[in-house]
C-alpha cells in the first residue's frame, strides 16, 4: 500500500510553503507524514539540516506527544513548539496523516508564525485531505 503525489500537486504545495513561510523569514519547512516520510521540504538556502533524521524524529516526537495527550485526557495539544537559543521548531498537524514542521529564528515571533502556519495549513488541507481519506 502506498500513496502518490504528482508534480502538479507537489508544485502547488511548494508554492504555498514558499510564499507563506519561507518568504516571510522561516528558515526551513518540511511537510511529512506520520510515518516519517518527507513529502517536501524547503529552506531559505542558509543552512542544510539532516532532514531525513529530523523527519523521523519529528514524526516520533509528535506521535509520542499525541499519545501523552490522550493519557491525560486531552484529544490533542494545540501547540507543540520547542524554543532554542537561536533556532526554534514548531509542529502543526495538517490532517490525521500529515505534519508541517517549521524551523525559525528569533526574528519571527511565535504568534506571527502560528498565524502564517494556520493559513498555510488551510491551503494545504484541501490538497492533502483526499489522500488521507482514500489511502490511509
Amino acid at each position, binding site marked *: *500500500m*502506498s*500513496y*502518490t*503525489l*504528482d*508534480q502538479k500537486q*507537489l*508544485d502547488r504545495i511548494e508554492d504555498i510553503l514558499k510564499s507563506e513561510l519561507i518568504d516571510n523569514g522561516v528558515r526551513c519547512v518540511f511537510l511529512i*507524514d*506520520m*510515518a*516519517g*516520510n*518527507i*513529502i*517536501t521540504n524547503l529552506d531559505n538556502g542558509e543552512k542544510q539540516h*539532516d532532514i*531525513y*533524521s529530523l523527519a*523521523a*524524529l519529528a*514524526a*516520533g516526537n509528535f*506521535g*509520542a506527544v499525541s*499519545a501523552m495527550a490522550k493519557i491525560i485526557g486531552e484529544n490533542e495539544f494545540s501547540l507543540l513548539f520547542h524554543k532554542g537559543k537561536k533556532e526554534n521548531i514548531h509542529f502543526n498537524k495538517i490532517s490525521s*496523516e500529515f505534519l508541517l514542521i517549521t524551523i525559525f529564528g528569533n526574528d519571527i515571533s511565535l504568534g506571527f508564525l502560528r498565524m502564517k502556519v494556520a493559513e498555510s495549513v488551510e491551503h494545504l488541507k484541501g490538497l492533502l485531505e483526499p489522500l488521507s481519506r482514500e*489511502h*490511509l
Partner: protein
Amino acid sequence: MAFVNLKNKLIQVKIVYYGPGRGGKTTNLEYINRKFQHRINSEMVTVKTHGDRTLFFDFLPFDVGLVNGYQIKIQLYTVPGQVKYDATRRLVLRGVDGIVFVADGMLVRRETNIQSLRNLQENLASYKKSLRTLPWVLQYNKIDLKEQGIPMMPIEMLEQDLNQESPRPYFPASALEGTNVVATLKKIITLTIASIRKELL
C-alpha cells in the same frame, strides 16, 4: 505507508526491525551502517538509555539507488524491545511497509520471542494491519553463541513457534558478526518494494 513522489521520482518505504529486548535489532542496523557507509549519507539516529538500550528508536536511511527510474530510499527503524516500551513500539510501527522480526536464538528466550511476536500482531492490529498482508521476514539471531556452548533453539523449534501460519522467509544469522544481516535486508527490501510495485510501473 510508502510514499511515491512522482515529481522527484522518489520512493520512500519504512522497514521496522521488531523483536524482544536485547535480541539484536540495533546490532543489525549498526552492522548495516558500518558496511554501507557509502549508501548512507547521514549518522544513524539512536535514541538510547544510559544503559545503551534503545529508548525510542534507531533510525537509518538507506539509499538503494535507481530502480526502474525511481530513487528508492529505505527508512530502517528498530523498536525498543523492553516490555515497558509498548506505547513507543506502537508509535514506531506507524506507516510501516515491511518488518524484520529478529528472534533471539537462545533457548532461554523462547517465551519472550513468542510474546514479542504476539505483541507485534496486537500493535499492527491497532492500525488495522496484519502480518497476513504485510511483507515480513524472520531472522533467527545469535547463531554465533552456539560455539560458546550456550543452549540455542534448533531452527525447527523457532519455526514452529514463530513461523507456522503461511511461512515466511527466515535467516539464521549473527548480527554481531554480520552473518545473513545483508541477506535479511535484501529480502525484506525486495518483498516490500514488490508489494508496492504497481506504483513503479
